[in-house]
């Protein structure tokens, strides 16, 4: 059961991890992305994530499906939070499980890297100085999933 969600409230990472796993799996991985307290040498108090929500859900589902192919199981769960988050809060959680660890590591890494390349989500950093700025990122290309690999 592939899970791909964009949410506005806090992410329960234990619950995301509990969404994967099987008696036949020997490896389960949880990746947790958090808001750090600095960026480019500047102290940061928080981040506001904006999204093209309808598209972000579709793209996240597609990424999770591609990860499932790498993984060899359907046990992929990915949740991205949007809205304003404080330092230390969880912005993204990715859980995967598979019979062996190699595929789990590869699939988990694939999901976060593809999120950074093509998920229509943006972040505005709130600096301790009171300033704020949208952070530049990746320019998504109009290509199929195979070309992203």
């Amino acid at each position, binding site marked *: 059961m592939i899970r791909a969600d964009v949410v506005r409230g806090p992410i329960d990472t234990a619950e995301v991890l509990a969404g994967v796993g099987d008696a036949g799996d020997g490896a389960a991985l949880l990746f947790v992305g958090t808001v750090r307290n600095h960026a480019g040498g500047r102290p940061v108090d928080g981040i506001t994530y904006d999204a093209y929500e309808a*598209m972000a859900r*579709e793209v996240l589902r597609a990424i999770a499906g591609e990860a499932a192919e790498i993984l060899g199981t359907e046990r992929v769960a990915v949740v991205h939070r949007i809205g304003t988050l404080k330092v230390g809060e969880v912005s993204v959680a990715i859980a995967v499980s598979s019979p062996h660890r190699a595929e789990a590591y590869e699939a988990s890494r694939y999901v976060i890297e593809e999120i950074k390349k093509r998920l*229509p989500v*943006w972040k505005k950093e709130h600096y301790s100085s009171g300033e704020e700025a*949208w952070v530049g*990122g990746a320019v*998504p290309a109009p290509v199929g999933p195979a070309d992203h690999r």
Partner: protein
Amino acid sequence: MALAVRTLFFAAYRDLVRTSELPLELADGATVADLVAELRSRGGPFAHLPPDPAVAVNRVYASASQPLGEGDEVALIPPVAGG
């Protein structure tokens, strides 16, 4: 004949043009590139939109040469920064 589409703006682009959505009428056969040129020709903050931004048509990334259809949802996508 004209072609009506919805244009969506997010993040830095929304802050720039001070709106999240704009209906546009384009000539039949207009492409993504034509839409961007039309927006930039409005002047003011619109002139500061990039000439070749990433664009999604109906929630799928599209090339500049993609033709648009009646009722399409066309989003200008600033560089993404999820995760």
